């Protein structure tokens, strides 16, 4: 018979599964409305599907191709300046609230953007161009960090050996570098594809019409504007099916190191002048591309009319956003530590795989699908108008759980590998072990997880779009509505505030900073 103190873990896992099952149950119709299969004969459905796939494919290919030369320069060029800063910036870009970026991109490339006059008469920002720019901005940094980490994992002796054997640059690349890269490229491309396929805020803001809309946005529009659950159900099922198949496929292609911090490296071979130049140019362009949209917010925000700016609303909205993000990230921390407590107790590989699948399965279920399912299921029983905030916090926790689990897993695994016997031998009590040894060991990773999940929840658009309401908007929605009413200067200022909060939180919770 299980002991009472062993119950919370299994209960937590059951809860995680139950949320998904409830969402599925609702999506299966549950006696109210069946999925509208007639959409299969609608041309707009196929247009939306095609655009969802094409934009995701282009975004992932472009991000990966651009990331390779930049990551190589970062890993091998010892003369490159501000590398540590750039890698930290990359982390921020990956979790950056979409609305901050969108506001910056509009100020740069929009109808009256700073760069628009140089882009020719036929330039159209809204649609595929804008969506691609935004998706590459958000995902290129992720690819750069993963590839850079892979390059830095190549042992010093491999570089020394290739130099002593007189390898040319292409030989070194083919025999030393490519083997460590090739395992991760399909997984990175696949992961970016999934993120872009599930993209909501970017497409909502920069897309438009069936020719530039994704399934995620179509679900939102079907539910929020037309209140057509049958259509939303069909779209959600389509999305789930495609994402599920792709997720399983990409998982088989390889494993990710995610956003592991960059490591100091030992001896590295000097590069030829031409290769160094190409690497530095790629680095310079990446810096410009990733910094310019955010820097542009400064002059854009300077143009605000201080007298009419809604300061009170900004203050309220900011506090509300901070509250949601704090609660969601703290819930996530409790949740992920709980999941790992069960994971660590399980000695069989099969049980661990099941626990891992439960923790990661929300990666496969897009936030919009989960939100729609939960929304529909509880609609007859409770007023979302009143209780929507609870769903926003809990669902933000769930969608960030796979990130948190994958970030923490190597650290927990290493801890057990190294110290499991010592901990048993020392005969520390459960609480003393947890408080004095385990948590201090995980603290740097927990802090990174806390920071990332906070920023992700702070920038959430998808979940809020279903459960939120205009009377208590969050900061991203305030920016969206300001930009929607052509108050770009106001939107830029609010975006800068959101960006500032994100930077501050990541900076404070950054492991290197915290360990000082």
């Amino acid at each position, binding site marked *: 018979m299980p002991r009472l103190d062993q119950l919370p873990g299994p209960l937590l896992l059951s809860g995680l599964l139950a949320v998904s099952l409830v969402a599925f149950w609702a999506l299966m119709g549950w006696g109210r409305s069946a999925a509208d299969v007639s959409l299969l004969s609608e041309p707009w459905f196929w247009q939306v599907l095609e655009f969802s796939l094409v934009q995701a494919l282009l975004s992932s290919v472009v991000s990966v191709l651009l990331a390779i030369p930049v990551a190589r320069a970062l890993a091998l060029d010892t003369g490159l300046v501000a590398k540590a800063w750039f890698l930290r910036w990359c982390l921020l870009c990956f979790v950056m609230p979409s609305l901050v970026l969108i506001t910056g991109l509009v100020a740069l490339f929009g109808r009256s953007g700073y760069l628009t006059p140089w882009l020719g008469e036929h330039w159209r920002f809204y649609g595929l161009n804008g969506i691609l720019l935004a998706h590459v901005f958000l995902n290129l940094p992720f690819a750069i960090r993963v590839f850079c980490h892979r390059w830095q994992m190549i042992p010093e002796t491999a570089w020394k050996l290739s130099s002593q054997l007189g390898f040319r640059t292409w030989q070194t690349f083919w025999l030393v570098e490519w083997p460590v890269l090739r395992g991760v490229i399909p997984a990175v491309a696949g992961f970016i594809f999934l993120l872009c396929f599930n993209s909501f805020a970017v497409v909502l803001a920069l897309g438009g019409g069936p020719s530039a809309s994704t399934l995620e946005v179509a679900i939102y529009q079907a539910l929020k504007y037309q209140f057509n659950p049958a259509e939303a159900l069909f779209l959600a099922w389509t999305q789930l099916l495609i994402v599920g198949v792709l997720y399983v496929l990409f998982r088989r292609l390889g494993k990710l190191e995610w956003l592991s911090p960059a490591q100091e490296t030992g001896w590295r071979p000097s590069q030829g002048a031409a290769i160094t130049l190409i690497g530095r140019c790629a680095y310079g362009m990446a810096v410009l591309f990733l910094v310019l949209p955010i820097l542009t917010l400064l002059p854009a925000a300077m143009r605000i009319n201080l007298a009419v700016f809604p300061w009170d609303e900004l203050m309220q909205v900011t506090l509300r956003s901070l509250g949601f993000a704090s609660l969601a990230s703290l819930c996530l921390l409790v949740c992920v530590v709980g999941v790992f407590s069960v994971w660590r107790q399980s000695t069989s590989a099969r049980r661990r795989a099941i626990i891992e699948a439960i923790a990661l399965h929300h990666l496969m279920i897009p936030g919009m699908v989960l939100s729609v399912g939960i929304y529909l299921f509880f609609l007859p029983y409770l007023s979302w108008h009143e209780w929507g905030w609870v769903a926003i916090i809990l669902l933000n926790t769930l969608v960030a759980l796979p990130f948190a689990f994958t970030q923490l897993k190597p650290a927990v695994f290493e801890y057990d590998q*190294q*110290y499991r*016997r*010592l901990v*048993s*031998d*020392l*005969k*520390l*009590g459960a609480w*003393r072990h947890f408080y*004095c*040894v385990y948590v*201090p*060991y995980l*603290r740097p990773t927990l802090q990174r997880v806390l920071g990332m999940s906070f920023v992700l929840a702070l920038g959430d658009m998808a979940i809020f779009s279903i459960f939120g309401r205009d009377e208590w908007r969050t900061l991203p929605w305030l920016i969206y509505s300001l930009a929607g009413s052509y108050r770009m200067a106001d939107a830029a200022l609010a975006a800068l505030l959101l960006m500032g909060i994100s930077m501050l939180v990541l900076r404070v919770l950054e492991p290197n900073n915290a360990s000082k």
Partner: protein
Amino acid sequence: MRPNKLGLDVRDLHIRRESLSWRYDFHVATGQMLAVMGESGCGKSTLLDTLGGFYPAEQGQIYLGEQSIATLDIRLRPVSTLFQQYNLFEHLTVEQNLKLGFCKASPTPAQWQQVEQALALLGVQEQLKRKPSVLSGGQRQRIALIRVMLREQPIVLLDEPFSALDAQTRRLCGDWVKHVCQEQQKIVLMVTHEAMDAQEWADQTLWVQPLQSTDV
């Protein structure tokens, strides 16, 4: 057969690991040291793992005095072990690591005084506020040894405790281990590859060989 009243009694202990098997019968009195010797891979560490509860025995008994400890959970076994590696938590200071060896991680003033004396004797008293990652292999080994020896556990298992030490420090540590063993009436089992270690400090030697019975 009834176990001896004092000391560690290992009776007809059968251990199997993959294709190898061992049978042990030996007795170590309190205040005595047993050197465990044998070729690399012959099963010395497996014996310590079994005594510590990390590896199951097929059959047989382990007595401490009159109490059978063979089926006790790891956390309840009166054993303190020095492993070959990972004896210190890298993210905690030496002081925190040392304190973890005592009840509620809070040694009494008398216990802490013993720790401080040992630190001074073994030449690592300056390292108290540092983290293990900045220490040399020998310094780490001495600090781990201090915690293992001064914990309130009657059985001490040392797996190659002096492997990272130079000859002079090795002698210093060996003498100290012997002294603590006698003074606190501990039962010490020490895996070593050095015949000199056994000659210098051990009261008896156990030669480990697989696939046949191994007796003292």
